[in-house]
């Protein structure tokens, strides 16, 4: 019943807001840069418990990384789309922050002891056989067939989500391996990768940076990032 574990997680917006509020920061670009590392750490825990929702968290993480990079590299020029992405994240956080007290009010109301009970349809009346006019075996057959078709379509949806939740750990290992094999440009690492893979690779890169496993350098905005293992040749 993976749906049950799935339900233990709120969305990334809620999580991000929680991290910001924990540090008593306002919802602003600088605060987002501040909590990036915490968010990435949380990402790691989800990945272990519920990989299926990782994909949605990765999208938010990639925006955070952009913000973080911008704060670290003041010269970094962002595209219009990227700027819009950051503004959009801030806007969502503000909205969520404004709505959040309502969640608690709802919870309190739900937890109140009393509730109402109604009666089922025609309670206590005996059944009267009343078949629908145009019902026959053919119609039943085609109805059951289309239900099975719909159910088949449901399963791939689950698979796609799993596929897109690319393992962060795998990517970290990949970077280390590639570095060992001599590749030093981020551009080469990401060659021919899907968009979401590039994002995960970049997150992995930042992880390695934070844990001081690697050094990275970008000569100027949009130029390739040069990566080196710390204490190289180890």
């Amino acid at each position, binding site marked *: 019943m993976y749906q049950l574990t799935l339900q233990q997680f709120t969305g990334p917006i809620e999580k991000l807001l929680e991290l910001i509020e924990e540090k008593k920061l306002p919802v602003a670009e600088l605060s987002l840069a501040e909590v990036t590392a915490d968010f990435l750490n949380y990402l790691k825990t989800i990945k272990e418990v519920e990989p299926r929702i990782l994909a949605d968290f990765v999208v938010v993480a990639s925006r955070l990384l952009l913000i973080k990079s911008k704060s670290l590299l003041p010269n970094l020029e962002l595209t219009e789309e990227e700027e819009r992405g950051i503004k959009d994240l801030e806007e969502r956080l503000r909205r969520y922050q404004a709505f959040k007290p309502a969640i608690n009010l709802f919870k309190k109301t739900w937890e109140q002891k009393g509730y109402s009970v109604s009666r*089922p349809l*025609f309670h206590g009346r005996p059944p009267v056989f009343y078949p629908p006019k145009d019902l026959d075996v*053919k119609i039943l057959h085609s109805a059951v067939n289309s239900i099975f078709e719909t159910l088949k379509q449901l399963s791939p949806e689950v698979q796609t989500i799993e596929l897109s939740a690319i393992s962060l750990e795998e990517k970290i290992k990949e970077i280390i391996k590639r570095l060992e094999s001599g590749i030093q440009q981020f551009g080469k690492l990401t060659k021919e990768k899907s968009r979401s893979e590039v994002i995960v690779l970049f997150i992995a890169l930042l992880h390695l940076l934070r844990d001081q496993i690697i050094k990275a350098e970008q000569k100027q905005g949009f130029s390739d990032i040069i990566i080196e293992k710390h204490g190289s040749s180890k």
Partner: protein
Amino acid sequence: MDHPNNQNIIGAIEAVLFVYGEPMEIKRIAKILKISESKIKEVLQQLEQEFSIENRGLKLIFSDSPAGERVQLATKPEFVSIIESIIKEESKDNLTPATLETLSLIAYLGPLSRAQIDFYRGVNSSFILRALLMRGLVERFPAPKKANIYLYQPSFDLLKYLGISKIEELPEYERYKSQIPSTK
């Protein structure tokens, strides 16, 4: 009840009889409300009087049983034709997508529990199951070894109406029956 007065005892009795639907022993009402039987009888009289006012659509029906006097909440007789017209109208409903979907699931994969039907349909099926029961299209029986769980299957009348003598005669019955998707 904590501080019973005649007023909220009346309300409580009305609520209990409303939900229960069937005739209920006065003894049992007394036990549920933790009030003496004589007090319940007194309050029931008061309630009966209130129902007699024109703007009420309900009334109390008293009956005797070996276990003692019973009381039931029911509609006043003057509304019988209105009630019959609703029942008739509700049954006239033609084959809606929900009806067809639920009925075909029960026919091909039954006996099924409500939870299983909910899973296949992706929505709650309590109302539609109740409607199918009322129209005599399906019947239910308690699931073996599981408390409060019912299993639904096609009614005998439905098979007859479809012109088949057993459910296995449905087209491709085995094919669907054998690949029941997991309810995981």
